[in-house]
């Protein structure tokens, strides 16, 4: 794991185009929304709701890409495209991995907000 949690070039470009102040607000929004989305992903998995599972993974991927959270976005993309079967085969571990990566993303983004 040599690649950074947040790709600085992507994040800086976001700040440049949307404005630094707005970027801070956008990070706040993501940090406020993401836990509920991760919970929804688990709910959909538990309920066998494939549509909601795909849609939520897609949404998390999209937000990950916006902030330059490449590893997080890649994991979400695998869930979006792979569906629930591989997750079941791995006893739900990919969901735990995504949650751990989110924790890293959240702290990195909070750090960037201050800087």
């Amino acid at each position, binding site marked *: 794991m040599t690649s950074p949690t947040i790709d600085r070039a992507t994040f800086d470009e*976001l700040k440049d*185009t*949307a*404005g630094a102040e*707005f970027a801070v*607000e*956008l990070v706040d*929004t*993501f940090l406020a*929304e993401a836990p509920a989305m991760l919970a929804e992903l688990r709910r959909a998995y538990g309920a066998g709701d494939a549509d*909601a599972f*795909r*849609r939520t993974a*897609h*949404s998390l*991927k*999209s*937000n990950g*890409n*916006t902030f330059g959270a490449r590893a997080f976005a890649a994991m979400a*993309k695998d869930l*979006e*495209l792979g569906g629930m079967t591989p997750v079941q085969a791995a006893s739900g571990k990919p969901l735990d991995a995504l949650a751990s990566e989110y924790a890293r993303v959240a702290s990195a983004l909070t750090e960037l907000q201050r800087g």
Partner: protein
Amino acid sequence: MAEVAGRGARLLVVDDNKVNRLLLTRSLELLGHRVAVAENGRAALEAMRREPFDLVLLDIEMPEMDGFQVLEQIRGDLALRDVPVIVTSSLEGLENVVRCIELGAEDYLTKPVNGVLLKARIGASLEKKRLRDQQKELVRRFATPEVAQDLQRSGFALGGKRIHASVLFADIRGFTPLAEAQPPEETIELLNTWYTLMFDAIGSHGGIVSQIAGDGLMAIFGAPVALDNHCESAVAAAREMVDLIELFNAEQASARKPAIRIGVGIASGEMIAGYTGTSERATYTCIGDVVNLAARLEQHTKEAKRTILIDAATRGALPATFSADALGATTLRGKTQAVDVFAA
């Protein structure tokens, strides 16, 4: 709506994800647009039916109603189908892009959306929308509903094609002294009345007014939509114009205002018809010898002291029930060869 293409337009952002919605809204507002948002497809359609938008930016993966369903609904709705839609999505797979385009999306942008691309695509879509709106307005003002429908079906392109049609020129006789004898406000009112009456007579016989200038106009019968009996339609319209002017003159007389007299010239045959101008401003018109002949006949009404003059081709196509006086071979101003002229 899009008064200035590319800026100050009214846009609708449709996305179920709050971060995406905020970011896209922000980017569009920085480009100078006014933005409304909807959280899913159903809310988007409701918003579109409530107020007009110049452009919609549509996500695909959404709960309740996804973007594909929204595109289908928009395409099936006459009131909404002309609103351009740019799909903004992070959907995987080229087949999804193709599906959006097939369903009528104007363009497809991958999220996260690149600012430069966004600006360019929005500018292009709004410009296309503006041209379509302008074209519809042009058609509404200058064409009958049949012509308008034909244009909606066949589209709009500059350039001409050979057609057979009748061209009609009409103007007010002795307009300049009339205009000088009354206040300008009354002259404008008179002109507006005259145009209203003439448009009505022309439109009711299947013609379109292609040009208006001062106190004169040019109308075409048989294009852009073919008419079986364009000669007869043109002459019938001319006669209706004369009847309407007589009615108008009776009103003028009772208001102690001056009467107006008109002159009409009609010629028929092959000509080049099409849209001329630029893509910004164009008019449907015809050019060719037949058009010049119709204009000369209209001018000749003064010397001939007849209200409606037609050429031999028009006369030849009229049914026997139409009476017309043969005035003999006449050399019209600007022409070297004499032509047979008839008063209808």
